[in-house]
């Protein structure tokens, strides 16, 4: 009798308990403190933090103010992904570009590229057309190029995992080939498993 009662009680409580843990789909603030935190992957808040920190450092350095014809023109060079996951580096660079544009200190060219097609092929074609028509360079050459690397360092001790993501950027003056500003932001996450919220 007692056994039956316990079994029926467990059958009622267990689904409720399990169901209580699952959350319904809902909106959260992008990058806010309710975001999912993964140990072995770069989360959206990591890109935002890295971009914000490095943009502030770049603006504070004053290097963008030293160009003869402000605002400075920036070309995005190669950002190497040395992590174990496939990532779109625009998640980092676009945030930096937008922040620099909003600051009024730099503009980014979308017609200069290395290798493949330009970011804006239409603008590039029109630019080339104008140059051919006027027989002179119409585009401003970039004052700086921005390159970088994203590196992951993962370690595990017992059931605790730790991942450090290093976001490294270099701003190079193409005339001298010298890096006039360099920034690095490291984000370390540790735990047994991922979690929802900071």
């Amino acid at each position: 009798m007692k056994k039956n009662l316990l079994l029926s009680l467990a059958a009622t409580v267990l689904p409720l308990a399990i169901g209580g843990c699952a959350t319904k789909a809902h909106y959260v603030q992008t990058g806010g403190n309710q975001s999912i935190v993964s140990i072995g992957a770069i989360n959206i808040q990591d890109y935002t933090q890295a971009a914000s920190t490095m943009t502030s450092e770049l603006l504070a350095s004053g290097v963008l103010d030293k160009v003869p014809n402000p605002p400075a023109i920036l070309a995005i060079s190669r950002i190497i992904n040395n992590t174990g996951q496939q990532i779109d580096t625009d998640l980092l660079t676009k945030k930096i570009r937008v922040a620099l544009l909003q600051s009024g200190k730099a503009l980014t060219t979308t017609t200069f590229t290395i290798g493949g097609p330009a970011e804006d092929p239409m603008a590039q074609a029109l630019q080339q057309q104008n140059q051919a028509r006027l027989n002179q360079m119409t585009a401003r050459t970039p004052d700086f190029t921005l390159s970088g690397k994203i590196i992951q360092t993962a370690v595990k001790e017992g059931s605790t995992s730790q991942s450090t993501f290093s976001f490294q950027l270099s701003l190079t003056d193409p005339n001298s080939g010298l890096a006039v500003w360099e920034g690095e932001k490291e984000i370390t996450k540790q735990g047994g498993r991922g979690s929802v919220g900071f």
Partner: protein
Amino acid sequence: MKTRIFLPLAAVGLTAGLIAVSGCKTSMNSVENAQKTGQRQMVTDQRVITDRSLAKKVSIVGVNQVITPGGFLKVQIELLNTTRSPQSFSYKFEWFDANGMLLNSAAMPTYPDEIQGGEDKFITGQSPTPASKDFRVKFIANIN
């Protein structure tokens, strides 16, 4: 008989409890130059406290600001952990223009942070544009 079982259990529980509690305790010593060269431009601040527990544990010692050569507003906040345990919290800077309008920026993140027991630390933020004139910083205790 009951006492015989209870006493060893209580002893084990007490030891485990003490180990657990002492494992969470941290403390911080520091040293700095006594004769300061730099002068901080302190700001008269206005606080809205809805989480008294966090405000008590992680207290705001002072706020100072500076305008960078590029015209950006840079704010530094000194925090003190008044407890003997590490405290985990997040903070976010908000920036306002001359008309008091909130400036939206692509990269205004919520930063997770931790402060050790008894530690005094600084957090800094720089405005996204030279148009920023005022600021607000939000603090929230972390859940994990």
